[in-house]
């Protein structure tokens, strides 16, 4: 059973957590027009890498807060745990973030407001 270091409560058993799947999936805003296929990139497509994976966890039985984690899916090592809305700092996790195919998708670009200059989406 994994031991997960909740950034607020400290290390707890895996049974206290829920895994929320891939992190850093930006939600396209409805005001931006994208094709169904592009929308599917957001809605359906998920990575399943062997190695470093950036994912979201929620400490459901504890503080109920969400956070991000970089976990090695082979060794189960938690390389880094970092706040929701922020980007990882460790090299392995940064590389995983930068190299994700998703960074180039139309659905990710559509997560930014069409007119306004900046949007504050925690997932991005």
């Amino acid at each position, binding site marked *: 059973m994994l031991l997960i270091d909740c950034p*607020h*409560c*400290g290390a*707890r*058993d895996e*049974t*206290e957590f829920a895994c929320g799947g891939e992190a850093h999936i930006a939600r396209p805003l409805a005001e931006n027009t994208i094709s169904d296929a592009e929308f599917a990139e957001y809605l359906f497509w998920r990575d399943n890498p062997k190695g470093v994976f950036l994912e979201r966890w929620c400490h459901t*039985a*504890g*503080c*109920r*807060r969400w956070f991000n984690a970089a976990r090695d899916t082979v060794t189960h090592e938690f390389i880094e745990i970092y706040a929701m809305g922020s980007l990882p700092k460790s090299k392995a996790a940064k590389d995983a973030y930068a190299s994700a195919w998703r960074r180039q998708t139309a659905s990710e670009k559509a997560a930014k407001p069409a007119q306004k200059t900046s949007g504050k989406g925690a997932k991005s």
Partner: protein
Amino acid sequence: MVSSAVLPGRSALSQVAAIQHPVPKGSAGKITIKEAPFHDLINLRCQPDNKMANALIKKLTSHSLPSANQAAQAGDRAVIWLGPDEWLIMAEAGAANTIMANIETANLGHVATTEVSNAYGILTVNGKPSRQMLAKHCAIDLDAGVFTSGTAVQTIMGHAGIILIATDENSFTVIGRSSFMPYLVALLTDASIEYGVEYRPA
């Protein structure tokens, strides 16, 4: 609105009768479990750096907002950390409305109070082997050197979510959702059979 304390009403455990198991030879000590009903409980949501809110809570409860995994519990009122922007205020019966009104009218920004006095049941657990007993269904490190007096965590006991607070070396407060309380009493008295136990309803 009239306070919910107008009438005592029925506690979360009013349908559960007393339970007793004899103290066997070689027991590390008897466990006593009691219901501590009719405390007023307020769920407080507030950013931890809200200085005005912190000062007001201190005025109302005599406690500053405790940090992670801590409960400030000296005196009549207690404040229990539940999360980075969430606390549970425990006060004497009938106090909730006044405390909430004080907070709600104070213009503290993004702060909210919700009364949850009825949503939870409270048990006190006493006895020398309390830590051993609780560890049977709880994965938290309950070592006396780690889970010191004043430590408070939200975690799982058996199949129920709870708030667990160490009040001293051999005493704990277990707070659970009302509907889970009969299960929790059954679970904890069962886990205490090894030591001998008395459960006393309020």
